[in-house]
């Protein structure tokens, strides 16, 4: 029973973070059709800048958080304006290659600015302590973060589904040419999608760092989120939530019952199996090509 609760709570927490990561990646994918391999580096920047500001001290928390969210957002927006914008309409592979380049550049920049240090990130609003869930001691911030990410994911899904802005984003993502003919400034929409994607990366980075520590290990979390994103369906906001939670809980069970070494391998094998059976993911759009 104790193990079961540990597995589920650990899985939910990880699932929450994976959900925010894959939401960011889905948003970027919905925009420009690019799978971002630089998402982990954006998370790293969000977490490190907050940790760095906390270590320096003297900054009010809201300012720190705003900087922590807007820095990765700004980086992602710059990346879109400077490079990705030129790749609209080309095969998706070119965008992916560009994000690999961005990842290398950001890795180098992170070492240059923050050195090889780790930073502790503590968000005071999230009180640290132990809660009893069904007789098992679990950490309070884990539960808070799991809940908060769920709320954010639902809010974002709602905005994209029910508002005018959401319609613009969905239209521009589905068919850039038609959308631009219909009077939508697709470059502005894509820019917004990338900026928001970067901000979500920062949020996920800060949440992860609050639970653990801000170190270069954050980048691996983003790689672990790729299966979550694809399993849910690469272009589905709801899929990001389902995939994130599913993979999170799956990994929670693997960590608790088998071994934490096996986590990445297991989730990628799960991904491989699902890709072969259902390439569009659980909730994604089935792509049909006609000649």
């Amino acid at each position, binding site marked *: 029973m104790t193990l079961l609760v540990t597995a589920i709570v650990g899985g939910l927490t990880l699932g929450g973070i994976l959900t925010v990561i894959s939401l960011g990646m889905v948003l970027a994918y919905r925009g420009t059709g690019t799978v971002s391999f630089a998402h982990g580096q954006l998370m790293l920047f969000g977490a490190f800048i907050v940790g760095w500001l906390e270590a320096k001290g003297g900054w009010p928390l809201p300012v720190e958080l705003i900087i922590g969210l807007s820095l990765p957002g700004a980086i992602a927006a710059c990346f879109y304006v400077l*490079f990705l914008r030129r*790749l609209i309409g080309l095969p998706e*592979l070119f965008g992916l290659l560009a994000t690999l*380049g961005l990842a290398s*550049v950001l890795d180098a920049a992170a070492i*240059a600015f923050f050195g090889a240090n780790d930073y502790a990130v503590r968000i005071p609003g999230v009180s640290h302590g132990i809660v009893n869930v069904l007789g098992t001691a679990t950490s309070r911030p884990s539960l808070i973060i799991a809940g908060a990410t769920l709320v954010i994911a639902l809010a974002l899904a709602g905005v994209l589904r029910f508002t005018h802005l959401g319609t613009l984003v969905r239209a521009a993502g589905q068919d850039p040419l038609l959308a631009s003919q219909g009077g939508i400034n697709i470059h502005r929409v894509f820019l917004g999608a990338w900026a928001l994607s970067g901000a979500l990366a920062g949020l996920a980075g800060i949440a992860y760092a609050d639970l653990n520590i801000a170190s270069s290990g954050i980048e691996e979390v983003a*790689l672990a989120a*790729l299966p979550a994103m*694809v399993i849910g369906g690469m272009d589905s906001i709801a899929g990001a939530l389902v995939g994130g939670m599913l993979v999170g809980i799956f990994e929670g069970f693997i960590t608790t019952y088998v071994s934490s070494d096996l986590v990445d391998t297991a989730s990628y*094998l799960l991904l491989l199996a699902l890709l072969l059976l259902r390439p569009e993911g659980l909730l994604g759009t089935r792509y049909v090509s006609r000649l």
Partner: protein
Amino acid sequence: MSEIVANAKPAGLAARPPERRPAGFMLRNFVRLAIVAAVGAYYAAGTSSANLFQLNSCMLAAIGALALNLLMGTAGQPSLGSTAFLGLGGFGTVALLHAGLPFVPALVVVTLGACVGGLLLGLPSLRLRGVYLALATLGAFFFLSYVGNRYQNADAGPAGFVLGPLFGSAPDLVQQRYWLAVLFCLLAVTSVGLDLLSSGRIGRALRMIRDHEAAAPALGIPVTTYKLGAFVLYAALTAIVGSLGAPFVGNVSTDSYTLNGAIAYVAMIVIGGEDSISGAILGAFIVTLLPTFVSSETTAVAGSTFSATYGPSVSEGIYGLAILVLVSAGRGGLAGLGRTVWRWARHRALGRAAGFGGGRPVAKAPAGGSVAADEARAGRLRP
């Protein structure tokens, strides 16, 4: 495109016309190898085994890059699994050497094993495209690095396996000269063989699969066979590089087979120029030499402490930036840049000579597949 139809149609119906290579085929292979040979001879005559080691590392990387170029550049199947197969080669060789096999049979067995691995990795490619396929190869990477890790922890500890030099007890410099000879021959065979492959019927079929996969079967191209064949060749060549790299470096550990390593191979292709043999070799040399170059430059400018701390990340940043700029410029990397400059120069020269004031020169239509391939490439890169 009409040419592919003409070439694919007679299969099984009539005798296939003999393959015609583009006019510059012999020349470009000769020039390519002559340049590499000249560089090799220059360093082999020197007395620095460190320089030779660098050059040999470049040649090894170039063979791996050529393999990835066939798969990613020509056939359009992206792979982040290069280090997985390097690791398969390295760890497989170590395991077989420990089992008592001599090196060369071990190399052969490992290569055959990698063929099977490539076939398995190719299976998802029959259903998946582009980004999904890259993710599937990432899965292969995680799986093989997990297996490698288990083996290493069980048998060798965190430092990995140590291998003795391959060529007896000769001094280091002589060892490196032997390696140079072996690797040059291998590079020559690989580059000429792959050029032969990609400038002919098979290359045109692979490009058709890359650019219009759904339409390829209609032209009589057996997509499944070609795709799996490309994966098998890629896996086998990469595993050979990994297998040779084990005694060459003298150490096999999971630290050498990282995801960043796989990205570095992709970087070689992108920097050199996709679907270009010279480009892949050039890219491999640049990406391999960059860390050493940056480290010596930063030591000269800012001292050795700075260089040791920031050198590796500076070079990573430089090649990241190179990828960003070259991909978004959309001209096919350095090879594409060279092609553009060459055309511009020829245009100027011919235009002046023929008296067309800057107008387009009227060129004789050359034979062979290279022009069609160039056109296809240009068409693909233009939105």
